[in-house]
């Protein structure tokens, strides 16, 4: 059986597949578990503080419980807590491979990082090109799911989120993921067109399980999931470096703003929901985001993998009431 390779956020997954390993996005394992609080408990029992990001604790809990031996830790371009997390994992005997997206989006530096991963996983260019081509086919199917959301209105905001967010590891088997995506499209393509206030969801994916359901219940329709779409790497030309240099998420807020502006125009978005994770440095970036778009913005701060509390519900409901009253 192929060895699992865990990672802390989206990495050039093509290399892992080409090396014959099974990529595991540790965030996905954490959040799709029926009892994600268990992983947080594991981390807190080992001394992780209560007042810090629960995604990091969840990742740690998953690595420990699932006995994952190798973890690619994204040290630049994601979360600053990953530094300490990778030190703790190393201390506990896990093999940690650091990966860095260059903050200045420098092509040469990114190329070096990609070459490094290729060396570690013994992947040559020929093998990588073959796998990359196959994965591109899957990415194109995911892109179609995205279009079916904002153009046809037959895919819900939650379904859009789920298909795109899981693209980071394609559930460990890209061929099967492609098949699943195709059959999903067959199933929903003639569904009834969804109505609702067209919303953009920006920021990291929510830790809250009923987030999209509640928005939909109150008359909203998420037609753009910013980071999730980025995780699906919807860039089809060029080589692997071209693709991961176009990817906005790791290159700071300004790279993201450009992408968000383009997409909200294209998707006819009426308002924005900015999700931030409690204790995350990205909360500060809300200041810049609020000044960058000419649309109403609601900022929601989530903490634990638990259903929306009354206060969050109040904000979302009031926000949608506000948008409706100003129609």
């Amino acid at each position, binding site marked *: 059986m192929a060895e699992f390779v865990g990672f802390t956020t989206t990495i050039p997954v093509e290399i892992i597949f080409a090396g014959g390993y099974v990529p595991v996005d540790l965030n996905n394992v954490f959040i799709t578990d029926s009892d994600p609080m268990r992983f947080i408990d594991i981390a807190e029992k080992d001394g992780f503080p209560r007042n810090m990001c629960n995604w990091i604790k969840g990742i740690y809990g998953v690595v420990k419980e699932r006995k994952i031996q190798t973890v690619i830790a994204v040290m630049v371009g994601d979360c600053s807590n990953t530094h300490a997390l990778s030190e703790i994992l190393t201390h506990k005997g896990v093999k940690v491979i650091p990966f860095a997206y260059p903050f200045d989006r420098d092509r040469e530096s990114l190329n070096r990082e990609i070459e490094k991963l290729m060396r570690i996983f013994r992947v040559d260019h020929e093998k990588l090109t073959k796998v990359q081509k196959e994965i591109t086919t899957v990415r194109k199917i995911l892109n179609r799911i995205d279009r079916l959301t904002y153009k046809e209105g037959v895919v819900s905001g939650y379904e859009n989120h789920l298909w795109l967010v899981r693209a980071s590891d394609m559930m460990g088997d890209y061929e099967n993921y492609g098949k699943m995506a195709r059959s999903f499209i067959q199933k929903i393509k003639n569904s009834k067109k969804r109505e609702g206030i067209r919303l953009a969801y920006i920021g990291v994916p929510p830790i809250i399980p009923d987030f999209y359901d509640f928005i939909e219940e109150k008359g909203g329709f998420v037609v753009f999931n910013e980071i999730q779409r980025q995780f699906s790497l919807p860039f089809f030309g060029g080589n692997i470096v071209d693709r991961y240099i176009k990817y906005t998420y790791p290159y700071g807020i300004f790279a993201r703003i450009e992408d968000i502006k383009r997409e909200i125009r294209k998707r006819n978005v009426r308002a924005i929901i900015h999700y931030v994770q409690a204790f995350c440095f990205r909360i500060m970036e809300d200041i810049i985001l609020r000044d960058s778009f000419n649309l109403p913005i609601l900022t929601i701060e989530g903490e634990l993998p638990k259903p929306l*509390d009354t206060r969050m519900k109040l904000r979302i409901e*009031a926000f949608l009431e*506000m948008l409706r009253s100003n129609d």
Partner: protein
Amino acid sequence: MLVAGIDIGSITTEALLLDEEKGILGYTIMQTGADSKRTAELALDKVLAYPKKNIKDLSYIVATGCGRKRAEFANQTITEITCIARGINYVFPEVRTVIDIGGQDTKVIRIDEKGRVVEFEMNDKCAAGTGRFLEVMAHALNVDIDKIGDLSLKHKKELTISSICTVFAESEVISLVSEGEELEDILYGIHKAIADRTLGLINRLGGIQKDVAMAGGVAKNMGVVKALENALGVEIKIYVEPQIIGALGAAIIALEKVS
């Protein structure tokens, strides 16, 4: 024709009756307690008792507040943010910014000339800067909650409470007491801390737009009102009973539904 608005808050519940001319026939304010469903029923019964009416005489009921879903007798539920905006617009049509400080929430709402919400901000999970914060501080200082606002206005020194967290601020207050600081000066610091916290929310909306009004139970505390007026450099309008603004807005929306 008669309609009712009911605002089930975390600490108090208000019920209000409105006639077809938008005249307030009566209102009541009760402690919410542990059983908000029962309290909502009692509040409605109480407000209906004076004009000798019963629930069948009501053409429409709108419930609001964090316990709004518990009012099973209501025809509709609407968030307090929308209701406060409508309530303030009815009593002060010229107001464009509303600061509502309740038991566990602080909200800053920007409204238009029709009382529609244009933008709003609200404190997150932490109860710092809310009515609960004042209760904890009053308890730590062993002073009646109703007196702390006026006492703070008698301060001589401008003490600063630097902690944002209610728990840390309580420790800071206790330290100030043991250092021999005067009660009035400490209370000034507490009220100033609430004003600063609210200012943070106002700044997220890009500052205030005049006129400014305050609603919610904390609007009865002149220490907070003065601290906010000083921080904002404007006069704040306060309705004769600021706690009923949410219920009033709910009743106005109820009236619109049937007329």
